[in-house]
C-alpha cells in the first residue's frame, strides 16, 4: 500500500469526520429537572376509592379501547385476581387487604405513573416517548420502530404491546389524557368520572401538600408515605394508602433516577466524541508505526 504519512493523516481526518455522524450521542442531554410548579399530576387516595371501576369504563370510552358493554365494568369478581394494564385497558383497579385485618379491603387503580425522569423515554431509540413538562409521558407511534426496549426499561412494568396487530402495532399505556387536558381543557377521563374524589388532578406540589395534610388529619387512616414523591426520582401520579405499600402491587423502589446509570455511561463514552476519536487515532498510530517498522526490516533484509 503506497501511502505516506501525510496522506495517511489526511485520510484519517476524513475518516474521523465520518464517525461524527452520531454527534448527538456526545451531547449531554440529561433530562432537565422538572419544575414542580409547572408539572401536573393526580393524587390517588386508595382509602377514598370504593372500587366502582367507573374510571376503567371512562378510560375505555375516552380512548376507544376494547369493545365491551358497560356491564363488563360492573363485574366485581375481577378483584379475585390482580390484573395488569394491557393494550386494551390503560388502567385497572385491583383489590388488596390489610395484612393485620384481612376484612379491611382497599382498592388501587394502576396505570402509567408518568415519571418525572422516565426510563422509557431515556431508552427509546427514536424519541417516540417524551416527557411533557406539564406531566404526561407522551407516545408518538409514527416514530416508533417497535423494539419494545421501553417495556424492558419501565420500572413499573406498564407499557403494553399490541402483539395481535401484525402491521401497525403500538406501545399502549395511559396517555394521561394529554389531548383532553392540554388542548380541550378537560380533566383526565378517570378523574372526571370518579364519584368519590379518590382521584384529584392538580399541580404536583399542591397534590403533595394535600396528601400530607390528609395524612396529618387522619393518621389512623393513612400510612405516612406518599408513594411517587421520591420513588425513581418522583412520579406525576401519587398514591395514598391505608397500609405500607409493600402490601400492594406497587414495586418497592428507591429514589434513584432509573436512567442515570446508563446515561452516565453513555455520555462518558461519548464525551465530546473524544474517547472514540482517541481510540481511532491510537489505532491509526499503531498501524502506521508498526508498518514503518516492517518496511524498514524488509529494506534491511533486501
Amino acid at each position, binding site marked *: *500500500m503506497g501511502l505516506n504519512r501525510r496522506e495517511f493523516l489526511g485520510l484519517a481526518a476524513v475518516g474521523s469526520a465520518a464517525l461524527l455522524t452520531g454527534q448527538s450521542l456526545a451531547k449531554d442531554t440529561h433530562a432537565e429537572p422538572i419544575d414542580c410548579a409547572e408539572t401536573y399530576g393526580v393524587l390517588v387516595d386508595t382509602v377514598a376509592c370504593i372500587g366502582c371501576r367507573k374510571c376503567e369504563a371512562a378510560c375505555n370510552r375516552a380512548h376507544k379501547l376494547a369493545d365491551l358493554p358497560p356491564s363488563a365494568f360492573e363485574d366485581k369478581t375481577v378483584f379475585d385476581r390482580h390484573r395488569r394494564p394491557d393494550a386494551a385497558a390503560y388502567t385497572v383497579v385491583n383489590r388488596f387487604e390489610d395484612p393485620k385485618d384481612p376484612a379491611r379491603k382497599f382498592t388501587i387503580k394502576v396505570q402509567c405513573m408518568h415519571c418525572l425522569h422516565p426510563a422509557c423515554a431515556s431508552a427509546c431509540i*427514536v424519541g417516540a416517548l417524551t416527557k411533557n413538562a406539564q406531566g404526561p409521558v407522551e407516545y408518538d407511534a409514527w416514530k416508533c420502530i417497535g423494539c419494545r426496549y421501553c417495556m424492558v*426499561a419501565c420500572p413499573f412494568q406498564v407499557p403494553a*404491546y399490541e402483539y395481535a396487530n*401484525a402491521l401497525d402495532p403500538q406501545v399502549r399505556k395511559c396517555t394521561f389524557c394529554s389531548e383532553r387536558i392540554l388542548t380541550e381543557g378537560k380533566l383526565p377521563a378517570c378523574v372526571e368520572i370518579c364519584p368519590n374524589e379518590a382521584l384529584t388532578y392538580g399541580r404536583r406540589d399542591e397534590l403533595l401538600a394535600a396528601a400530607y395534610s390528609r395524612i396529618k388529619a387522619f393518621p389512623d387512616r393513612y400510612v405516612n408515605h406518599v408513594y411517587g414523591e421520591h420513588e425513581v426520582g418522583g412520579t406525576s401520579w401519587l398514591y395514598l394508602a391505608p397500609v405500607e405499600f409493600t402490601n400492594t402491587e406497587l414495586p418497592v423502589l428507591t429514589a434513584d433516577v432509573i436512567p442515570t*446509570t446508563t446515561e452516565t455511561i453513555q455520555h462518558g463514552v461519548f464525551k465530546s466524541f473524544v474517547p472514540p476519536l482517541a481510540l481511532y487515532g491510537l489505532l491509526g498510530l499503531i*498501524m502506521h508505526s508498526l508498518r514503518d517498522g516492517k518496511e524498514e526490516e524488509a529494506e534491511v533484509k533486501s
Partner: protein
Amino acid sequence: MNHHEVAIPMRTKFFTTGTKVLFGIMLLGLASYAYRLIAGIGAATNLNDQYPWGIWIAIDVASGVALAAGGFTTAALADIFHKEEYHAITRPALLTAMLGYTFVVIGLLADLGRYYNVWHPMLPSMWQGNSVLFEVGMCVMVYLSVLYIEFLPVVVERFRGRVRLPGPLASLNRFFESWLELAHKYLGRFISLFIIAGVVLSCLHQSSLGTLMVIAPTKLHPLWYTPISPLLFLLSAISVGFPTVIFESILASRSFKLQPELRILSSIARYTPILLGVYLGLKLSDITLREAWPFVWAFSTESFFWLAEILLGVFAPIVILASATRRHSVAWLFTAASLTIGGVALNRINVFLIGYTPLYDNGGYFPSVFEILVTAGLISALVLVYRWIVTVFPIISVPIESIPAHERAANGIRADMSGAK
C-alpha cells in the same frame, strides 16, 4: 508473510447430507419468518407484556453480535498490529463477521413490531443521544457497511478483468468492470481507514450491548446486574473472537478436506486464556465487590446458569488452552473454542433472558416453535451462504503446491505469489 499459501475459491459439491438438512431447516425458518410477518408477533411468538424480549433478541441479536467479533479482533491483530502470519485467517473471519451482522439485522427485523421504520434512527430529527439502543443501532448499521467495504477487495480480486455475465446481462460487463477497476485503484489507499473504523465501531457497540440491561436494575438478577456490564461485554466479545475463528476454520477444513491451519490456530489460541483470564478476574471481582456470592450458592435457576457460564464457558477453556501441548491438538482446540463460544452465547442469554425477572410474572416465557425455527433457520442460512461464498470467492487459503496447474492458471496464481494481501 507466508509465501506458500493462497486464497482460492473452493471446488466442492454444494449439496451433501449436511447441507440438505440445513437447507430444510432454512426453509422451515423462512416459512416461520413469513408467518410472523403475516400473522404478527403475537401469533408467532410467546412474547408478552412481561417478557417483551425473547430468543430473537438474546440469541439472534445479542449472541450473534458477540460471536461475529472474530472479524474485528482478527483485523486488529493482522492489519493494525501487522501480524502478517495471520493473514490466512482474516478473510474467513471477515466473511463470518459480514454474514453474522447481516443475519443479526435480518433477525432483528423479525422482532421489530414496525420493522418498516427500522431506518428511523438515521433521521437527525429522531436522534436520541440518551438511548443506549440508539448508539448500538447506529454503530451496527455503520459497521455493517464498513464490513461490506472491507470485503470489496475480495470481489475485486475475484472478478476484475473477469466479469462474464450470462446472456443479455453481458452488456453490463463493461459497466461492472469499470467499477471494479475504480475500486482496485483506490481501495488500497483507503481500506486501512475502514479497518480502524471497524475496530472502533466494534468496541463501541459490543460494550453498549452490555449497557442495555443496566436500565433495568430492578428486573435484572444481581448475578448479572452490574454497572461494569459494558466492560464485561467488550472483554468477552474480544475473548470470543479468536475461538470463533478457530471453530470455523476447523469446521471448514473438515468440510473441504483440507489440512487445518494448525500453526496459525494454535498461535492465536495463546491469547485466549489471557483474555479469558482477565475477563474472569473482572467478573469475579465484580461479584465480590457487589457482595453477590450468596446468589451464586443459592441453587436457583439463575445460580445454575451462572455457574455453567463461568465453569464451562470461561474456566474450562482457560485450563485447556493454558497448555501448549493441547493448543497443538485439533481436538482440544475445537473443544476449547466450542466451550468459549457456548459460554459467551450463554452469557448473553443469561443477561437478556434467564436473569430477566419481570415484576408481575405471568407464567414465564419459553420460545414458541416459530421463534425456535426462525433462529435455527437464520443460523442454517448463514452456514449455507458462507459455504456458497467460499466456492465463489477466494476466502480460504490452501498451499500453492496443492493446487493443480490448470486451476492455478484459471485463478491467475503464480508459484511465487503470497497469500491474501
